[in-house]
C-alpha cells in the first residue's frame, strides 16, 4: 500500500457538489435535458418511464461531472442517458433487448423489399405511423436514427455516444434506415395482424 496517487482522472472533492459545481453543471449540462429526455423516450418507448430514466441519468451525470473533460457536453450526457436507458430496459423490459437477436432476420427481409419513394410517401399527419414503424425497430437500430435524425448528431458524435467505431456508424445507420423503410412499407399489414 502506498500513498502515491494511482488513479489519473482529476477529481472534484466529495459526492455533494458545491455551489460552483452545481452552477457549472446547470450551465453546461442542463441545456441538454431535452436531448436526454428524447433519447430515453425512444429507447424505452414511453414518456413516463423516460422521465424517470432521464432524471436518474441527470443525477448520474452530476455525480460523474468530474469526468467531463470539457468536450461535447451533449454527447457526454447522452452516453450516460443511453447507459441508464439500457439498464432500465434490462431490468424492466428485457424482451425489448432480446429483439436484437432477430436483427439478421429483419435485415434480410429488409433487403428483399426494395422500398420505392411513392410507397414511402409520408403525410404531415402520419406521425403515428412513423412513430410505430420506428418503435418496431430493435433499440440499437432505433437509437442511431434518433441520434441522427432527431438530434442531428454527426457520425463522430454517434460513435462516441453509442460506443461503436465511427466506421461502423455508417453501416449501422444504413441498416437501420433500410429497416425503418421496410417497417413503413409493411406497417399496415403488421398493424392488422397485431390487432387480431
Amino acid at each position: 500500500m502506498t500513498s502515491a496517487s494511482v488513479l489519473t482522472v482529476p477529481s472534484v472533492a466529495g459526492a455533494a457538489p458545491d455551489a460552483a459545481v452545481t452552477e457549472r453543471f446547470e450551465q453546461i449540462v442542463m441545456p441538454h435535458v431535452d436531448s436526454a429526455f428524447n433519447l430515453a423516450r425512444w429507447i424505452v418507448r414511453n414518456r413516463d418511464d423516460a422521465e424517470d430514466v432521464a432524471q436518474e441519468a441527470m443525477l448520474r451525470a452530476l455525480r460523474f461531472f468530474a469526468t467531463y473533460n470539457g468536450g461535447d457536453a451533449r454527447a457526454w450526457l447522452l452516453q450516460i442517458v443511453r447507459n441508464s436507458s439500457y439498464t432500465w430496459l434490462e431490468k424492466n423490459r428485457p424482451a425489448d433487448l432480446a429483439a436484437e437477436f432477430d436483427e439478421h432476420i429483419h435485415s434480410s427481409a429488409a433487403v428483399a423489399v426494395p422500398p420505392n419513394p411513392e410507397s414511402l410517401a409520408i403525410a404531415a399527419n402520419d406521425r403515428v405511423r412513423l412513430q410505430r414503424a420506428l418503435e418496431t425497430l430493435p433499440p440499437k437500430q432505433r437509437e442511431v436514427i434518433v441520434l441522427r435524425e432527431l438530434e442531428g448528431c454527426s457520425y463522430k458524435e454517434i460513435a462516441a455516444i453509442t460506443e461503436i467505431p465511427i466506421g461502423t456508424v455508417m453501416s449501422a445507420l444504413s441498416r437501420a434506415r433500410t429497416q425503418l423503410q421496410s417497417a413503413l412499407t409493411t406497417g399496415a399489414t403488421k398493424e392488422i395482424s397485431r390487432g387480431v
Partner: protein
Amino acid sequence: MACEQSHSVAHAYLDGELDAVRAAEFEKHLAVCPDCAEAIASWDEVRSGIQRTGLREIAPARLKERVYADLHRDRQSGQQLRRVPYAAWLAAAAAIVLALIASAKFLPIRERSSAPPQLVAQLVDAHLRSLQPGHLMDVVSTDQHTVKPWFDGKLDFSPTVQDFADQGFPLQGGRLDVAGGRTVAALVYGRRKHIVSVFVWPTQESDAASQSGSDHGYQWTTWRKSGMQYCAVSDVNATDLQQLQSLIEQH
C-alpha cells in the same frame, strides 16, 4: 443489385459525412447508378417525413423541475439518488461512493485531489451492474485466445488477457465498460463462487504500487504498470485480490 455494398456510402453522402474526394467519386457513381439514386430518394422522403411530423419529444417541464430540485437538494444534504425508487443497486452504489469518500479521509498522507473516489465508484458501480442477470460478459470464454481478439477493434488499446485457472482464478470472459469518460476493458475472473472484474485502460503516468479500499463487502485494488491502469473489484477478500494482482503483474 449490383450496388448493394455502397448503400451505406449513399447514406453517408446524404448525411454530408463523406470527405470532398469521396463525395466527388460518389457523385460520379450516382450519375450512372439508378439503385443508389433510388436509395437516396426514398430515404430523403422518410427523412423529410420525420422532420415534418416533429417526432422529437421535448422534456416535460415537470422533469426539469425535478432535476433542478435534485441538484439543489443534493447540494444541501449531500444525499444522492434518493428519488430513484426502481434502482436499488444505484442506491447501494451511492452508499459505497459515500463510504469510499469517508474512508479516504482516514488514509495516511492522502491528497484530496490525488485519489478520486468517483472513478473507483464508477468501477464499483460497473461491477455491480455487471452482476445483474445477463449482463456479466459480452464475450464468454475461458480461452484467452478468444477473449483477447474480441477486444480488437472495440478499444484503442490492446489489453493483456491471461487465464489463471491453474492458480484459482479462471478467466470467464470480458466486456466493455465506461469509466472516467472512456471505454475500458473489463476482464471477468472467477474466484470460487465469486466474480472479479478487472478493469484495464491505458495511462501515460508512470508505474505505481497498489492502492486499495473496501466497503460494503466490495474490495477494490488499483495499480499502474507498463502504461496500463488496472482496477480490480470484487466481493472476495483483500488477500485474494492481491494474489490476482500479482499474477497479472507477473505476466
